[in-house]
């Protein structure tokens, strides 16, 4: 498999970047203690080469990215032709959403073009880690379910089991986004990169599941009757997936209310089941148990103020901040008290556009000055 991949890649001079990436991934795989979230790396492979758009030639498209996946994940992709596209698309949306949700915070969901997309933060156990796990899992669930109903995955179609409330003799069900398939697939695919039975494992799997539940609990059915004068001869129904912004908002709420947990070491762990939430208990015994939708973490977040290669934080210097805001995006908090420099920029943009019938638009160029504040 390896040599095949290398030979194949050698054919493309434009793929140097990918080669470097693969090599470094082989090094990092031996270096990294756990394989948590290694599959995230496929998002970079997919964007640096354009191979994945060629969905017909599945094997060809898969080779470079297969290296980042476990054997089980590779099998899943082989069994569901067309699904890799959905996974990558889901990851992209998840990363975009993560960046948007955290655009005003010290940790602004930085990603890189290395195989460990989110950096060292994923090896920790803080709130941010929890959010990354939940949002990526949710993103893949969302994208896979959507692709199912669009028919771009061969092994699943519209979910015809979700029929109307009339029970089995309700003849005309609707085509709904197949969220069950999305959930099942994502559970197999995403959770399979988690190994071990330790607290980190339990927490990651819990957060993955929380992301998936958020997607499926936000689904809603929309129906409409058609028939003579409002009778219900034909009824069109479909399940609508929430827009991913909704999912992001909800997960952000859960991030703010995440609970810190410890390992509940009760009796023998020999028979411990995967992701059994009973093995997690809140650090403060007075708090109630986290529900399946809650995000959990086990260590305090670093303050993300300064660059720290050991922790993998980039720091906030150079970030633009809002001088008038007292909130997290305000210069005081964002720059961690280090102060900020102010820069005045001239911005030229098109303005006073008028539409002439028909059909062209003429605009003027306006120049305005904008004050930018940057953390030191």
């Amino acid at each position: 498999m390896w040599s095949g991949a290398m030979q194949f890649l050698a054919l493309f001079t434009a793929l140097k970047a990918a080669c470097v990436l693969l090599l470094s991934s082989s090094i990092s795989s031996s270096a990294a203690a756990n394989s948590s979230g290694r599959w995230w790396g496929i998002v970079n492979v997919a964007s640096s080469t354009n191979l994945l758009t060629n969905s017909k030639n599945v094997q060809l498209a898969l080779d470079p990215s297969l290296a980042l996946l476990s054997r089980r994940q590779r099998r899943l992709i082989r069994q569901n032709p067309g699904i890799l596209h959905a996974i990558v698309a889901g990851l992209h949306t998840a990363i975009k959403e993560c960046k948007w949700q955290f655009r005003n915070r010290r940790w602004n969901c930085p990603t890189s073009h290395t195989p460990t997309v989110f950096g060292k933060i994923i090896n920790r156990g803080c709130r941010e880690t929890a959010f990354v796990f939940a949002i990526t899992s949710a993103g893949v669930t969302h994208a896979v379910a959507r692709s199912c109903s669009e028919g771009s995955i061969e092994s699943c179609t519209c979910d015809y089991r979700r029929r109307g409330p009339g029970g089995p003799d309700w003849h005309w069900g609707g085509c709904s986004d197949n969220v069950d398939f999305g959930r099942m697939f994502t559970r197999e695919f995403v959770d399979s990169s988690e190994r071990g039975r330790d607290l980190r494992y339990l927490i990651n799997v819990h957060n993955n599941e929380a992301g998936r539940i958020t997607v499926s609990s936000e689904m809603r059915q929309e129906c409409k009757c058609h028939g003579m004068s409002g009778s219900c001869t034909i009824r069109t129904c479909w399940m609508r997936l929430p827009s991913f912004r909704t999912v992001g908002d909800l997960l952000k709420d859960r991030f703010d209310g995440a609970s810190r947990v410890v390992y509940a070491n009760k009796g023998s762990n020999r028979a411990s089941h995967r992701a059994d939430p009973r093995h997690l208990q809140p650090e403060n015994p007075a708090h109630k148990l986290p529900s399946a939708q809650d995000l959990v973490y086990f260590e305090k977040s670093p303050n993300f103020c300064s660059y720290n290669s050991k922790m993998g934080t980039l720091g906030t210097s150079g970030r633009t901040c809002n001088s008038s805001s007292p909130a997290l995006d305000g210069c005081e908090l964002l720059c961690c008290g280090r102060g900020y420099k102010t820069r005045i920029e001239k911005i030229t943009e098109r303005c006073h556009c008028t539409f002439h019938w028909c059909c062209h638009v003429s605009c003027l160029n306006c120049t305005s000055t904008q004050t930018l504040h940057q953390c030191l």
Partner: protein
Amino acid sequence: MGALSRQQFFQELPLGCLLPTAQQGLLQVWQLLIMCLACRLLWRIGRLPAYIKHLSTIACGFYTLYLFFGLHMVWVVLLSLLCYLILFLCRHSSTRGPFLSITVLIYLLLGELHMMDTNSWHKMRGSQMVVAMKAISLAFDLDKGTVENVPSPVEFMGYIYFVGTVIFGPWISFSSYREAVEGKELSVSWLVKVASSWIKSQLCLVISNCVAPYLFPYFIPVFGDKLLKNKKRRKNRGFVARLLMGYEHSMGFHFSNYFVSYLSETTTTLSGAGFTDEKDHLKWDLTMVNPLNVEFPRSVSEGVISWNLPMSQWLNIYVFKKALKFGTFQAILITYTTSTLLHGLSFHIAAVLLTLAFMTYIEYELRKRLSVILNACVLSKRCPSDCKHQNKKAFWVYFINGAFSVLAVLHLTYLSSVFGSSADDIDPDEDGMASHTFHKWSELNWTSHWLTFGLWVVYRIIM
């Protein structure tokens, strides 16, 4: 759940709504369309004996009924058997029409009250209605002598279960069924008619599902982004906003009706009925509905008539004209009552139709009176070109007609806002229906009822 921004909404719309809707529209009726086509082709080939043709359409009709209603189709079959029994028993009498009407109405009432659960009964309402209308019209035609003698059971059943009309209607007369059985040749104009009706029906389905419910916040941003911000706040908004929401609802309902109407045009034409014979030249011109006249009506009655043309025609021939001997107002009341009974005795339908009865009557009388006083063309119906009014094209004539048009749009919006656009919030039980109706109308401050009352007062003053 936060509302989507306009840009997000238009991104979501094609895959989220348009595609699944169009997909389902096709998915749910393709078998019906194939049955219609199969029947049509079968009638074209060779010289089949008539009874084979009837039997084939009965078979297709049964199959499609089963497809749509499952075993509940028994009730439709039972009604048709009952009708034929009555026709057969009264074959020597000359009052078959009234007698059959009463039997059918009793059957429908029993069904409404006792025989089966409301949900499945209402699902079949359309089919029951078509069967009842066909049987009653046949009985009256027999009395009148338009149809000479009682058709054979096979022919009668063929008429009732004619595959093109059995699910979505419309009512067609017995004579047009007989003409259709002859199997007119397949022509380009026939194909064009089928295709155009089908395209129109799909277009209306998409509009009903995906455009109408989002009309004001997204498509026509009358309030800018304010309406998007919070769905809950929309409920507390002013009268205009509530009226606009009612308009959204009613537009969804209207376009759902156009969808069904164009679909029935498609199936009927596809199975070879719905044409007029002009000299030696066939014209496929079945028209079920006239959306322009409903959306921009000259008067309420024009809107109501254009809502379902074959049914209006049926009501006009077999109910209104026969009831005219009791007086105009009584005839209008009887017509709307019959329509209510045929539609199944749902509270909201009854309320809407009875309100319509008063509205159309008062509007008709007031405009008649006005046209006499002003000597102008302001009647409910368009003046014929040779009418004797002096004022035809004056500015104020247009103004009065325009004002009545706006009023009619308001009335129709008000009335059809009770037909919920979502199937989930309609409670099938009667109490739920009644309170739903009252809730919707009191939300709109009972505007139309007050306006109608006001018009009546005006009418009495200038009488």
